[in-house]
């Protein structure tokens, strides 16, 4: 995650315009940050439709709470925090609703994972990093994203996802092993070497 920086002048202009409800500034903010945030939402979602829903909900929350943006930090960082928090809330809600198990195992791949895995391998060959993540079960993917990409410690991840710290650690470990096992260590190295 990019280090925190004060809001730049142009960001300040956009921020002030969004607070006043200026539609042009709101569109500018969306155009500037939506592509990056969509990638983040895709890394959390099971499919593109869910990712689009997450992005839409996230930006609605961004505009509704724009007054709370702290100008001491980066505007992009604040938008990203809102988007990620929305993704976490969505996951928690879905977890409660559908009773997703706290710990995912390799057996989870047998339902849908196998199909995803095959697709991911094909996608991997197409150098699509996001689809690589989709071979992971939901819980693993959440922990991996929050730990590696967002940089949260396991203690905070446990509080966000309403799981124990040990569960967070074990899911992260299993996510790493699954990626390496399913895709092959050499494939990952080749992939990163090609980037």
């Amino acid at each position, binding site marked *: *995650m*990019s280090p925190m920086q004060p809001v730049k002048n142009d960001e300040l202009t956009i921020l002030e315009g969004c607070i006043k*409800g200026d*539609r042009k500034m*709101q*569109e500018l903010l*969306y155009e500037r940050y*939506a*592509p*990056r945030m*969509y*990638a983040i939402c*895709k*890394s959390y979602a099971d499919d593109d439709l869910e990712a*689009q829903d997450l*992005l*839409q909900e996230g*930006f*609605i929350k961004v*505009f*509704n709470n724009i007054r709370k943006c702290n100008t001491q930090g980066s505007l992009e960082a604040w938008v990203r925090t809102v988007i990620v928090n929305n993704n976490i809330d969505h996951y928690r809600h879905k977890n409660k609703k559908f009773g997703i198990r706290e710990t995912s195992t390799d057996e989870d791949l047998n339902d849908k994972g196998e199909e995803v895995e095959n697709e991911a391998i094909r996608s991997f060959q197409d150098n699509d*990093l*996001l689809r690589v993540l989709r071979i992971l079960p939901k819980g693993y993917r959440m922990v991996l994203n929050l730990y*590696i*990409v967002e940089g949260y410690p396991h203690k905070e991840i446990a509080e966000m996802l309403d799981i124990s710290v040990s569960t967070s650690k074990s899911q992260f470990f299993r996510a*790493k092993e699954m990626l390496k096992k399913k895709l092959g260590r050499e494939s*990952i*190295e080749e992939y*990163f070497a090609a*980037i």
Partner: protein
Amino acid sequence: MNDGNLWDRFLSSFEGLVQTPPSSVKEGVFSELDRAARRRRRLKRGTSLLLIPLLFGGAAYFISSEQEGGNASPSGNELAVQSASEGESGILSAIPSTRDAESGPVNRGAAERDASPSSPRREDEASSPEGATESESIVQDRPGDRSGESASQGEDPNGDQLAQDPSKGERVQEVEEKPMNGETGPDGDKLARMPRKKPKNDDPDPELASKDGWGLDQEDQLERFPRFFVGGNGLMNFTRFVDPQTIESFESTSLIATEADRALDVGVEMGVQLTHRSALVVRYFAKEEVGQDYEQYVNGRFHSQRLRLTYRKFDLLFEQDVLEGSFMGEHRSFLSLYGGGHYSILRQAERSSMGEDRMMPNEYEPQAYGVDAGLRFGVGTSYGLEAGVLLNASMGLSDIRQDENVPEHLSGSSQKTSVGVGLSLRYRFGQEVMTDAR
């Protein structure tokens, strides 16, 4: 390559990743923002409308309280003080100083007799009933002092102008001499049985001071308010929608004709009487019907359709009496004005066209708000009942249409309006039988 480097590279590649979202996401975001902005505007308008009658009511209550407080003082306190002070001067001029202890009761009594042209004491003593209280004797003995009725009728056998308003009663300063019960003076007159008391400016008769010009005890007044009432009313309304088609229909060259619809609305109400003349009322109509007939000339033919919306309606009104009188000489009558806001919840939206009825709740907003105003002519009867005739006008302020597919600047806004007459009946809790006053 170890895991640390692996994940660092994973992270660095992920950080630069961008994906172009479809345009439908952007449209969804901004349409939701527009909806939220409209909801906020409606909420602001609705809140301010509800606050208006409360502010108006509070101000009127405050003003009425100030006026009634001011009216009460002169009729009670000031008159008692005035009459007491004037009585004091009259008494002092008629009666020499009684502070001279050497003169003794006999001389004092003689002085008092000399001061009065007649001997009212003798007459009063003869007439005073036995067992009379001290205060009654005082009132009777004092020259020119009569009971309330006689004095108010202008009777003053002594021609004494001392007592200005003896109906309020006067207390005479207690003299130093002690009452000489049964003791007679040199002339055989019985002396004053009871000590005289000097009226004190700062100590008016509490009984008198507490009553206001209406003869109502102030404590009673305070206890009377707030007073609650309940009731019901029925309104025969003529309703219309204020929309572009209706406005166009009033033009002479228009090919659109509209006609108001009629509806009977029955509701209940409850309220609180803040003062004699002001009240806060909440009305509820389980069924508020608003409708209109349209006729449009299209392709050489007239197409008629009827639109009817049914709401649940809540009114919050402030009522103020502007005129008062009496009805048949016995009952209080009044004319009051009321105003306030209303909030409506859509129950049903029906359109009848070409002989077909179609429900279309999704085309109309589930909530609406507006303002109400009117007149009420009422008569108070015994046992706390009050009957009245209403003239009511209601106008919606919010757009009742809900069609996201058509931009607002093309479809125009539509508000519901109605004008009606009706009857109301109220029962006031805690109302005394004898009085019709609020």
